């Protein structure tokens, strides 16, 4: 078939994008600043994918600036090479889609970056992961690359919209690119009588059945979460617990806290419905490689300090836009000593600093956690010693103190002890950030040491079914074998609730622990913008589980050292 060439005129630049369609892979000769994009498929997906090559420069302001033509030229001047082929086809044509975009005659990709012995080009962990996922030997920040998704996650809030876009753009009868790489996790608005919320879970179920999606953590009996064997709970914790997070992989989720999974040494970031719909059909996404900010956390963690304090410290340091379009890498002796859940807490809030993704290099701790959770082989990528980082921040954690983020911004950092006159109305322990097993164990430890009862309503929302079960079975260290649940009960906390996102983001009016009045709350969640937990005038102090428990005991924002 004759190649049809369309030229897209670009007013702003002299570069031109030449698009050819062909049934066979064609390597077009391209001059200077042109990119030839050839699709060996008639599928709309492949063509749509290539279409975005032309516009992707739009996804970062830096490229839109007429003055940074250099970066624009980088984009146009770089080789965009995308090889092969998602297995699942897009209706109506069933064929392997081989998509190739070339700038100059392509060079052979000899070996994947991970196996190269000598380091020819120093890269950060994030660059290596993306290089591997885009089958390139080297990448530099600023490059736009097509990246293969290993996992796409969506939930009940964004799933229906994503599915709608997928069906509209790829066809009502289209099939997803890979039924085993999509994970559908209802978790946001589950235990509510809101009809639309319930309907949204039904939409997920219908799609899961229609597409034979392998991983759909369904819930049908809302009155008793335990009657639903498949139901997990909060998506990010479920992804980790169910073995969907693996080092070296690329994970996309329709939720900003998808960056949580960076704790596993993978590239994980949040995207919107449209991007997710695109991935559903093609299995790929066009990404700009982010430069990396490195955070070196050294020293021994004081016993009153938790990972939450560290990330609040960092966000307070660099501000809510300090990591916009950047990767945040966490290294250092303190990080190496952390458990996987601690690392997740760190990476979870990367987005609160504007970060694109968070990364903690995978190590023995990671391998131990993954035992029994996944049998899929994975690759470990760590930053080269001489890789270039945009900026490096060093912290001696032994000198840090418990902190809170005061209303109404995650970067409004303050020392917990300096807020001791702030009277509070309630405490909330839950969410992907602070509702994991170790978060509850920490809170229970402090309550047990004090032996007192809480002075304000204290809401406990385990992130997942597994966490809930841990509350009732795991012994809390130093308490003669008591479980978290026993300690919470003795301290007068609310009974641990059904696992879900619950009130972290407010939700429907009848959501458990939603803030429906203008109250002051200390919470282990991730955001405290106005109205976040429900009421616009509610005041939220973000804190570690220790700080939250200590505050519950006094009725004021309290430094945990008062008890520990």
């Amino acid at each position, binding site marked *: 078939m004759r190649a049809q060439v*369309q030229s*897209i005129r*670009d007013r702003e630049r002299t570069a031109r994008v030449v*698009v050819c369609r062909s049934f066979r892979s064609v390597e077009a000769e391209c001059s200077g600043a042109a990119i030839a994009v050839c699709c060996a498929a*008639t599928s*709309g997906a492949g*063509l*749509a994918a*290539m*279409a*975005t090559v*032309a*516009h*992707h*420069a*739009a*996804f*970062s*302001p830096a490229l*839109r*600036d*007429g003055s940074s033509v250099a970066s624009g030229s980088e984009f146009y001047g770089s080789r965009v090479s995308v090889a092969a082929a998602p297995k699942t086809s897009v209706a109506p044509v069933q064929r392997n889609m081989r998509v190739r975009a070339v700038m100059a005659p392509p060079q052979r990709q000899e070996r994947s970056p991970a196996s190269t012995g000598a380091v020819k080009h120093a890269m950060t962990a994030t660059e290596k992961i993306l290089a591997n996922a885009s089958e390139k030997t080297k990448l530099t920040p600023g490059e736009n690359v097509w990246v293969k998704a290993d996992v796409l996650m969506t939930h009940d*809030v*964004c799933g*229906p*919209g994503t599915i*709608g*876009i997928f069906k*509209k*753009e790829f066809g009502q009868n289209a099939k997803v690119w890979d039924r085993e790489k999509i994970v559908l996790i209802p978790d*946001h*608005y589950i235990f509510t009588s809101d009809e*639309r*919320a319930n309907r*949204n879970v039904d*939409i997920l179920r219908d799609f899961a059945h229609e597409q034979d999606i392998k991983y759909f953590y369904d819930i049908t009996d809302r009155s008793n979460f335990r009657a639903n064997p498949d139901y997990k709970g909060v998506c990010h914790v479920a992804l980790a617990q169910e073995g969907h997070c693996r080092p070296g992989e690329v994970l996309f989720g329709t*939720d*900003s806290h*998808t960056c949580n999974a960076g704790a596993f040494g993978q590239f994980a970031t*949040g*995207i*919107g*419905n*449209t*991007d997710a719909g*695109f991935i559903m059909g093609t299995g790929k996404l066009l990404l700009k490689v982010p430069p990396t900010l490195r955070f070196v956390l050294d020293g021994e963690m004081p016993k009153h300090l938790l990972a939450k304090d560290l990330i609040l410290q960092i966000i307070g340091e660099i501000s*809510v*836009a300090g990591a916009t*379009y950047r990767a945040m890498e966490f290294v250092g002796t303190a990080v190496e000593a952390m458990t996987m859940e601690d690392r997740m807490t760190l990476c979870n809030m990367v*987005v609160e600093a*504007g970060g694109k993704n968070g990364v903690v290099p995978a190590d023995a701790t990671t391998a131990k956690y993954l035992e029994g959770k996944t049998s899929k082989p994975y690759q470990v990528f760590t930053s080269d010693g001489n890789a270039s980082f945009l900026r490096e921040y060093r912290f001696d954690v032994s000198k840090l103190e418990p902190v809170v983020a005061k209303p109404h*911004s995650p970067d409004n950092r303050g020392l917990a002890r300096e807020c001791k006159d702030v009277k509070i109305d309630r405490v909330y322990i839950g969410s992907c950030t602070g509702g994991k097993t170790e978060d509850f164990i920490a809170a229970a430890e402090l309550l047990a040491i004090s032996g007192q009862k809480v002075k304000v309503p204290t809401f406990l929302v385990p992130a997942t079914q597994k966490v809930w079960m841990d509350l009732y079975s795991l012994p809390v260290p130093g308490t003669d074998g008591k479980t978290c649940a026993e300690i919470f009960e003795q301290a007068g906390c609310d009974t641990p609730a059904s696992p879900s996102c619950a009130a972290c983001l*407010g*939700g*429907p*009016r009848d959501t458990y622990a939603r803030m429906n009045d203008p109250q002051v709350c200390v919470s282990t969640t991730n955001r405290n*913008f*106005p*109205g976040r937990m429900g009421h*616009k005038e509610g005041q939220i102090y973000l804190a570690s589980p220790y700080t939250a428990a200590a505050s519950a005991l006094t009725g004021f924002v309290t430094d945990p050292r008062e008890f520990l």
Partner: protein
Amino acid sequence: MKHKRSWGVRTFAVAFRARGILFAECGARVAIVALPAMAAAALQVRLVPATAATTSSSSSSCSNRASSRSVSVPCIRRDGASVFGSVARFETRQEVRRVVSRGGVRALAGEVQAEGKDGRGCRVIHGRCFVVGDNIDTDQIIPAEYLTLVPSKPEEYEKLGSYAMIGLPEEWGKFIEEGKMKTEYKVIIGGDNFGCGSSREHAPVALGAAGCRAVVAETYARIFFRNSVATGELYPVETLGKIWEENHTGDIVTLDMEKDVLVNHTTGKTYNLKPIGEAGPVIDAGGIFSYARSTGMIASPAQ
């Protein structure tokens, strides 16, 4: 279709017809007329053609004519007053068609309500602005309780729009009047880190569904920026400095993404902007998938 003869000059050639708007080209004068539904809002526009007018009765033949010409379009409002001295220049007829076909001319006038897609895809946006400050997060733009609405369902899309910016603290005022579904503000002026927080695509969708066409802010959070472009709902334009403190909600502004300026007619100030760049054509077309279709890259139509 009503024709309005302007200034006694005969209109004799129709350059092309675009959705709902007939563009007549003749000599030195042109009349833009509207479908009966908006007949009262006919505008007078003057074209300065370089070549002879062409006769056409369908848009397809017009779009095939890729002849390059410079067309300047000074804008005159319905009440006859000249809006401003700036003109919109179009390099090719295709561009004019694209602008006009999406109700762009309505945007030039600022007060005409066009049928069909409400003024989208126009690089010159005129109307009232709504001003906010730094770090307007997506929970404020569309609070979580409204996220049960699925943006890909048309009725729920509209409903989503009616809740746009409802999470804003009182100090910023009301983006949508009580009882209304749409906003009167076409442009939002903001500060740093606009759209931070949650990745919910409902945020730019709600703003677009409400009738807002662009945000002019210092910087954007990346997911919001990316979602705005992918959905084609909003133009996320960047300023060259902090401007929100000098503008007030209700000011009449013109956002010109051809010349990269924001003009505040109420205060008389003009601000330079960063070019919308590659994001422009994608948003013009209505998002990443529409762009791929309109440029012929996807053969199949949307379902």
